């Protein structure tokens, strides 16, 4: 809503928790062009292009996405904007759904850009609109940081006034400003410094950074969601609330520090504010008390500063863990089940739902670093291992991640003669982040028909000769395809194709579940070893086994939960004892 009211006309991004819903919501507004880009670098460059054409534009990504987009980010700082440009970075302290918890305020410092940080939804709306004015007035892209507890929080918003860009939409050539060759860039470098000076003045104003008066015995400097925890933990205290966390208002900070007896800097993750405040020569408490890892909350902040205030809590109960799991009927399971049987194969993984293939009982993923790293790490390992790695290195990547940065790695593998196998787990959608279309899905962000990348043709076009497509629910066929690919002495691709079970057309289809003829079950555990949430195992004592008519030595039997089963048939194909059949057959 905020981006719409701010007059944003073009928005691009790549889905990533906790940023995904921003683009999904914006795509519902009329008059805003929205798209899913294959990756964050592409998304930011699209937004830069729109800004150069004189409209307000918007790029969204999760924190690690900014790493991918860092190349254009650092240089668009030099070119500045025509239409306002805001880049949202959605950080994930605590790593609820991420591979690291980097603190992207450091990007603002490094790229010499203003950083705006709201603490809650209503403020995010207000600040985003103000960020567009800042962007155009100071000719700067604006980095806008939210964290999980700002992004995935719902609060009350009110419709506000529509804004318009001060720029005019049209082609305007300004080579000295936007053709970043060294000569021009050196001139722009000076402009960047002048701009940072002016932005420091904005930071000193009350636009984003406000002192909230209160008890001056303890003063708090804080920003983002940490501000809310401070307000709850120490409601009486005076607070300097920073909504602009780069550049910092040195004068304001020093005045505030002088006005309080004891100064505390409360921030999530890195001691970003603390280091810069200490560099100003201001003494304060910070990470000596407040944890620098994981999320904060009210009680962490309160007890870090007042250890005696800890509540006496009920002790936690000793319960079995409940980690996430691939869904019942997930097509990825067929591939990972087969890979789990190939004990001497190293599986180089990637980022998506299928990263859950790492978990027992399949335990069929041996590395996972970042988006697109599956195929490249496999290549590097194969080059290091030489003969020792022959026929033993497989990489797995989803369709969306393949389009994100996997294709570059595949080009490298072909060019530099890799002898590994890449499995593209094509479930037709970006599943982990909640069903977003991607370049291979055949639909755009609004769900309308769109051009679809033909993955087979793409792999062949970059030079892969062996490309085989297989239905992963057919476990035997999947095994054959993997074995065949591993035997080939050049780069091979297996495309495992079956739709995600969370796609509406699968989810809402009439259920056709399997059930168990438990009397036929011999307790071989073949189906249980799939790790499907719809299948469970019941242990039996020898006496119970005999009483139920089983052989005495049978340790238990498997049962399918018909409500959870979606009828993929992977378990039925593994059962050699006719103990699993379609319900009603």
């Amino acid at each position, binding site marked *: 809503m905020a981006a719409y009211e701010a007059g944003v006309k073009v928005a691009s991004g790549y889905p990533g*928790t906790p940023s995904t819903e921003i683009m999904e919501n914006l795509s519902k507004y009329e008059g805003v062009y929205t798209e899913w880009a294959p990756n964050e670098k592409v998304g930011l460059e699209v937004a830069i292009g729109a800004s150069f054409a004189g409209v307000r534009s918007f790029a969204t990504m999760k924190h690690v996405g900014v790493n991918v987009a860092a190349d254009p980010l650092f240089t668009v700082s030099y070119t500045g904007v025509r239409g306002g440009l805001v880049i949202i970075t959605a950080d994930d302290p605590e790593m609820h759904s991420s591979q690291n918890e980097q603190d992207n305020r450091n990007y603002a410092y490094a790229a010499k850009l203003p950083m705006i940080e709201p603490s809650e939804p209503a403020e995010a709306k207000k600040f985003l609109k103000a960020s567009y004015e800042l962007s155009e007035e100071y000719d700067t892209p604006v980095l806008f940081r939210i964290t999980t507890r700002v992004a995935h929080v719902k609060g009350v918003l009110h419709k506000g006034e529509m804004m318009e860009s001060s720029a005019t939409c049209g082609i305007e050539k300004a080579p000295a400003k936007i053709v970043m060759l060294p000569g021009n860039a050196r001139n722009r470098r000076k402009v960047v410094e002048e701009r940072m000076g002016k932005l420091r003045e904005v930071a000193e104003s009350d636009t984003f950074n406000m002192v909230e008066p209160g008890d001056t015995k303890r003063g708090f400097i804080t920003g983002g969601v940490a501000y809310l925890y401070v307000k709850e933990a120490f409601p009486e205290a005076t607070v300097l609330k920073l909504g602009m966390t780069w550049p910092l208002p040195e004068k304001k900070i020093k005045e505030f520090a002088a006005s309080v007896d004891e100064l505390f800097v409360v921030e999530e993750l890195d001691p970003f504010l603390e280091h810069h405040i200490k560099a100003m020569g201001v003494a304060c408490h910070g990470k000596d008390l407040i944890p620098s890892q994981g999320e904060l909350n*009210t009680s962490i902040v309160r007890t870090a500063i007042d250890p005696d205030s800890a509540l006496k809590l009920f002790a936690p109960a000793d319960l079995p863990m409940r980690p996430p*799991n*691939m869904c019942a009927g997930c097509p990825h399971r067929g591939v990972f089940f087969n890979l789990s049987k190939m004990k001497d194969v190293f599986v180089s993984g990637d980022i998506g739902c299928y990263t859950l293939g790492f978990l027992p009982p399949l335990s069929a993923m041996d590395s996972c670093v970042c988006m697109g790293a599956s195929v490249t790490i496999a290549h590097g390992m194969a080059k290091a291992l030489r003969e020792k790695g022959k026929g033993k290195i497989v990489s797995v990547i989803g369709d969306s991640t393949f389009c994100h940065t996997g294709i570059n790695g595949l080009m490298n593998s072909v060019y530099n003669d890799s002898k590994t196998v890449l499995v593209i787990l094509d479930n037709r959608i970006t599943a*982990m982040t909640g069903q977003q279309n991607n370049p291979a899905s055949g639909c755009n962000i609004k769900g309308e028909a769109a051009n679809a990348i033909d993955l087979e043709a793409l792999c062949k076009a970059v030079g892969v000769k062996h490309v085989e497509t297989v239905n992963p629910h057919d476990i035997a066929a999947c095994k054959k395809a993997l074995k065949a690919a591993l035997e080939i002495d050049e780069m091979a691709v297996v495309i495992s194709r079956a739709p995600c079970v969370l796609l509406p057309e699968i989810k809402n289809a009439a259920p056709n579940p399997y059930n168990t003829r438990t009397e036929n079950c011999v307790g071989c555990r073949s189906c249980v070893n799939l790790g499907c949430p719809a*299948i469970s195992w019941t242990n039996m004592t020898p006496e119970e086994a005999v009483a139920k008519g089983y052989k005495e030595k049978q340790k238990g039997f498997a049962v399918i939960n018909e409500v959870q089963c979606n009828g993929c048939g992977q378990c039925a194909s593994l059962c050699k004892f006719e103990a699993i059949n379609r319900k009603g057959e």
Partner: protein
Amino acid sequence: MAATGNILFSGVGGQGILLASEVTAYALLAAGYDAKKSEVHGMAQRGGSVTAQLRYGDKVYSPLIEPGKADILISFEMMEATRYLPYLHKESKVIVNTQQIKPPSVAMGQIPYPDDVLDAISSQGIQVVAVDAFDIAKDAGEVKAANIVMVGAMSAFLPMEVAVYESIINTRIPERFREVNLKAFAAGRAITA
């Protein structure tokens, strides 16, 4: 119940916890409270333990409930209720769906589903209301409406009238699911009201 409160929703990814918390949040807003709701998306949703946190009052700052301060725990799976024991206090109300969803270690037969898992809560003197939401929803015509059965059961502990929830269901839930959800809500409410 005080004018401010903290409601912790717990369960397993895919049980409709987000919708249940959404309906409750809208009901609180309709009754004039400030409300904030926090949840986690992404990887955690794939069959893992999930929570949604809902706080309401005159002015809510933090979206997160402090341990020891949840006034209501509404758990959509039995064992998951006990997982959040440290969030409870003596006066907390716990509404729990008695449905059991086996976590992987239990489904694999490595460890049993814990016996008498709710005793850990009730033995602290905390009121526990057990709701057979799955069967109630089945009777109402749609097992997926178990989440709204639970909202109905919880509604007796919150200050809003039934009509407020009904109007939220009528405006926020797609038309074809409205009737079954209204029935589910009423059946849940009947347990505690």
